[in-house]
Every structure is written in C-alpha cells, then in structure tokens.
C-alpha cells in the first residue's frame, strides 16, 4: 500500500498540483483564444508539460513504495513527449491544407504554402496570402 506521510509523497503531490495547474491554464487558453492556430497552441503545450509532471509524481510514489510500475510512468512521459508534438504538427498541416482561416488580428502570413485549397470558393487573391483577412474562422 501507499502511505501519504513521507516527504517523497509531499514532493509528488506538489508536482501533480503544478501539472494540473498547467492543464487548467491550457484549457482556459483553449476556450479564450480567437482562432484555431492560436487555440491549438495552448492545450497541447500544457498537456506536454502537465502529463509528464503527473507521471513523474506517480513515478516518485511508485519508487518510494518499491513497486515496479515506475517504468510505465516513464513510458507515459516518453510517449507524450514524442507523439504529442507530432499530433499537433499533423493537425496544423491538415488545417492549412483545408484552408482554415486565421484571425484577422494575425500579423504576417503563414510559413506554409498550401498545395491545394480544398474548401474555399474563390476568395480575394491579394498579396496577404492564404490566411488573409477573414472575420470568422
């Protein structure tokens, strides 16, 4: 069994609290930010920092209790670090290929050049780029 009275458990609880705070901040940013390209920024980065902190807390608890389960926590950290940014990148590429508009407050243009604009009907083709001025995404 796991006792909560050691200093290691206190350190683990503080790490878990910091991780869930990052998660909450990411969720607030996910609700409040204006368009998709800024909105995907908040929860994915918060998840890539929050989940490893919580898994690190679980690893501390498991190491303190003498379980062998700490390697699964290490696998969670490794997997979220490797595959979380990959999923974000794939989603942003897909959004650029589907011509999801960015906010009208965005300065400059995207670094991507979409090779095919699928669901757009002959918008204004000025020199602003494919993510030019649009009221709503």
């Amino acid at each position, binding site marked *: 069994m*796991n*006792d*909560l*009275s050691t200093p290691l*458990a*206190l350190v*683990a*609880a*503080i790490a*878990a*609290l910091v*991780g*869930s*705070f990052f*998660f*909450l901040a990411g*969720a*607030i940013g*996910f*609700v409040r930010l204006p368009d*998709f390209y800024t*909105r*995907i920024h908040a*929860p*994915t980065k918060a*998840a890539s920092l*929050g*989940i490893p902190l*919580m*898994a690190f*807390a*679980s690893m501390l*608890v*498991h190491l303190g209790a003498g*379980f062998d*389960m700490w390697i*699964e*926590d290490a*696998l*969670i950290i490794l*997997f*979220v670090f490797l*595959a979380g940014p*990959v*999923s974000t990148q*794939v*989603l942003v*590429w*897909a*959004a*650029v*290929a*589907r011509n*999801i508009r960015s906010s009208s407050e965005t300065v400059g243009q995207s670094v*991507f*050049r*979409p*090779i095919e604009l*699928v669901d757009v009907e002959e918008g204004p083709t000025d020199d602003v780029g494919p993510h030019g001025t649009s009221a709503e*995404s």
Partner: protein
Amino acid sequence: MEAAVGILYQASQLMLLVAIVLILYRLSLGPSIFDRVVAFETIGLAVVGYLLLESNATVGRLYTDAALGLALFSVAGTIFLGYFLGRGEFPDE
C-alpha cells in the same frame, strides 16, 4: 502531512475536472472539426492525468496500465484523424 497531501491531490483533481468542463464547452462550440479533434485529444490526456492522480492518492498501482493505454490511443488516434482530415496531402513536401 497526510491530510495536506490528500488536500493537494483533491485540489489537483478538482482543477483537472474544471479543465475537462472547459474543454467540453469548446468541444460543443468549436467552429471547425480541428477544434473538436484537439478537444478529443486533450480530454483523453486529462483523463490520463486524473487516473494517475487517483492511483497516487488511493491504491498506488491500479490505474497506471489504463493511463498508459489511454494516452497511447488518444495521441495515436489524433495523429490518424489529422492524417485523414488532411487527405494525405501535407504542405511540407
């Protein structure tokens, strides 16, 4: 100290539940399908964190397997959904 650690874990779980409610609001509101996909992934990862905290606070090793499997399916499913939504055509090539 045990009561303090229990209160810390309960506060962490409460913050994760508030985060899940906010992401559900975005999931119901989201203007594009990509917002809903991101909300799907983030809810999966929030449930992973909740399982880890629950496993820490109570039993110790009950939910860690489930957390690992859920993290794997959540992120891999998001990669497949993004590949499907982009129709295999990515602008980097």
